[in-house]
């Protein structure tokens, strides 16, 4: 620190009040919005009861931003939106404009700086994702790299609203699933496939054995004695590789370059529109970790997007389409093999069995 006097220590003040950051036009019309329309992909116009209009220009970002890019956004906001901007729940950046004449020049500058404009309505918006190898101790894969490789292929669906309904893609680098990955149209999930490797020396130094045993949801961790010293062992058949033990005790090593990889889940949704919110279901149990561009993952997701885009009806989310045509048809159309891994065997598994003779058979 370069300041000359010790500053008074301030704590528990919470975030700055949002009102300080609202565009004056938004302040004037707060809670008084009448309707909105989409002027172009990535460009919204909200109309207030007063007749005033606020224009939103939305652009995709990599979520991981350097301070120099944040300053670039600040400069663009000063130039085009009176200095007012916000971020969305999917890590897009939004500029809030009162001058419609500024829309096209802003779009041009954003595109020239490498930030695509879009992500609204029936598009693939930004991919919600986690830290991956950039910053997480429990990551089974990287996050940002897969998202970059995937969006390089899918970006036409970001900049155009050309899908039957919105399609929300998310990625989590382990089953902790930071973010609502488990309720996404397409979820990419980093997974382990083998029980933890126990480092007995480190375990004795750094872990409480009762806490470690209690951390296992299936009771697979048992007390044991190795070389005359107290430690644990793992009933391998009972381990489902959740890594909860690793979070509690770093001596339970999960990372395994050969066996870690990715699984693909489909058909979840968060919104209550039409059908109820639902979890994503398993489509592909395992794909290899193949940096830097993960071609197997990218191809698999692009294939699912293409099949969905071709077959779903208007307003039908991926899961709604799969439920209408039936999951057998989903596997047939996508060419994804159905395996023993697609049948649940954890809690409430029986609720997912087909318990009727409603069968779409074809000879």
């Amino acid at each position, binding site marked *: 620190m370069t300041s000359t006097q010790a500053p008074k220590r301030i704590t528990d003040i919470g975030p700055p009040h949002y009102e300080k950051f609202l565009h004056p036009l938004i302040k004037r019309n707060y809670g008084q919005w009448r309707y909105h329309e989409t002027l172009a992909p990535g460009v919204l116009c909200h109309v207030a009861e007063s007749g005033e209009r606020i224009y939103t220009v939305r652009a995709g970002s990599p979520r991981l931003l*350097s301070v120099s890019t944040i300053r670039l*956004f600040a400069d663009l906001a000063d130039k085009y939106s009176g200095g007012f901007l916000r971020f969305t729940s999917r890590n897009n950046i939004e500029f809030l404009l009162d001058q419609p004449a500024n829309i096209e020049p802003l779009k041009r500058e954003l595109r020239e700086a490498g930030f695509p404009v879009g992500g609204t309505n029936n598009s693939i918006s930004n991919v919600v994702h986690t830290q*991956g190898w950039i910053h*997480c101790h429990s990551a089974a894969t990287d996050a940002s790299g897969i998202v970059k490789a995937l969006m390089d292929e899918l970006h036409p669906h970001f900049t155009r609203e050309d899908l039957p309904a919105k399609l929300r893609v998310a990625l989590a680098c382990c089953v902790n699933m930071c973010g609502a990955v488990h309720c996404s149209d397409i979820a990419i999930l980093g997974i382990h496939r083998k029980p933890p490797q126990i480092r007995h020396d480190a375990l004795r130094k750094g872990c409480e054995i009762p806490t470690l045993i209690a951390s296992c949801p299936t009771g697979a961790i048992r007390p044991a004695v190795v070389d005359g010293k107290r430690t644990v062992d793992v009933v391998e058949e009972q381990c489902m590789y959740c890594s909860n033990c690793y979070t509690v005790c770093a001596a339970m090593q999960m990372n395994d370059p050969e066996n870690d990889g990715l699984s693909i889940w489909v058909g979840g949704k968060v919104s209550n529109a039409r059908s109820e919110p639902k979890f994503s279901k398993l489509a592909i149990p395992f794909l290899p970790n193949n940096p830097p561009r993960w071609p197997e993952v990218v191809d698999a997701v692009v294939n699912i997007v293409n099949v969905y885009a071709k077959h779903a009806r208007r307003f039908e989310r991926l899961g709604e389409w799969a439920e209408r045509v039936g999951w057998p048809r989903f596997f047939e159309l996508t060419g994804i093999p159905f395996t023993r891994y697609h049948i649940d065997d954890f*809690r409430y598994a029986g609720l997912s069995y087909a318990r009727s003779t409603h069968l779409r058979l074809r000879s």
Partner: protein
Amino acid sequence: MSENRPKPTPLLDQLESGPWPSFVTEIKRAAEKSPAAEDLLGLLERSYEDKKGHWKHGGIVGVRGYGSGVIGRYNDIPEEFSNVAHFHTLRVNNPSGWFYTSDALRTLADIWERHGSGLTNMHGSTGDIIFLGTRTDELEATFQELTAAGFDLGGSGSAMRTPSCCVGQARCEWACFDTMKFCNDLTQAYQDEMHRPPFPYKFKVKASGCPNDCVAAIARADLSVIGIWKDDIRQDDRAVAEYASGGLDIARDVCARCPGQCMDWDGAKLTIDNRDCKRCMHCINAMPKALRPGVERGAAILIGAKAPIVQGALLSSVLVPFVPEAEIEETVRELLARIWEFWDEYGKNRERVGEMIQRVGMAAFLDGIGLEPRPEMVAFPRDNPYVFFQKEDVK
């Protein structure tokens, strides 16, 4: 160490081409000024080579008087990447709705350039501004500059996590309550629970203004507050006709998709039987100029969502079907007090409130927090005949 030339990163360099903005380019931009960002790039390249992460468990790091807001990180090959030997993350509590001015962003950027890697997430999954990577001895200085600028840290660990909300009434005609005010008020009310972890495990509150649920409250918040209305959908017949003449197939794409089967289009007039409306938002989403939520607004309060760790993923389920707009905040605070008291008593270590409810039963939980059972709380009444009768109900 500063005289080291940048290590080559041939794998990561392949992620700089293509139309989508590149996080590798972002790290390289930060690396122009930050040796830590430079080493992060090298360490990540190593992960890309050997297909595994190189971050170790956090350990206890933080700022004075706080038990949360900082995620400790150390790498497992510090001898090679000494500038990220410690690389701790700060969660900086975002303003409600993620609104900023350019000056506020510059203030944050300047603080972080002085004290850390210059890398951020805008934003993390919790909704916080993420300051990605600094040394232990920079934490307190960063914190003091943040608070001097009017910012504070968010929650982490077994604490109340940073509440988050959708854009709400700031820019959305569908918001059935003021999500941003609710979120800000709640954040201010629970600073102690956020900064000094008091619970068995994390506790998240998220607020969405309507059932479209733009912050995924129902999928990931322990307490999900979702705007909803009680009276009739407001309808502008002339605008409906405009959608029809504009090419929207109202019978097929709106009425036939209504889960309440409560809409009828005869080719000229749309009729809605609002008694059967499930408030799903589909017709309103499809015709935003013609249909709007009613004026008797409020929120539904749901409980228990979480991701898979530990006992499996859960969606929130209905706790209170409708609270009028003016009573939401008071109701939520009263509920939180009762829920936390019960959870303190009965929750196990690392057991989210939803998992505890699965274990003890919703009925027992309702008894514990003093709520009457209501049919809106279940998808259907029990079909299991093994009923545990209460002692007072039998002779």
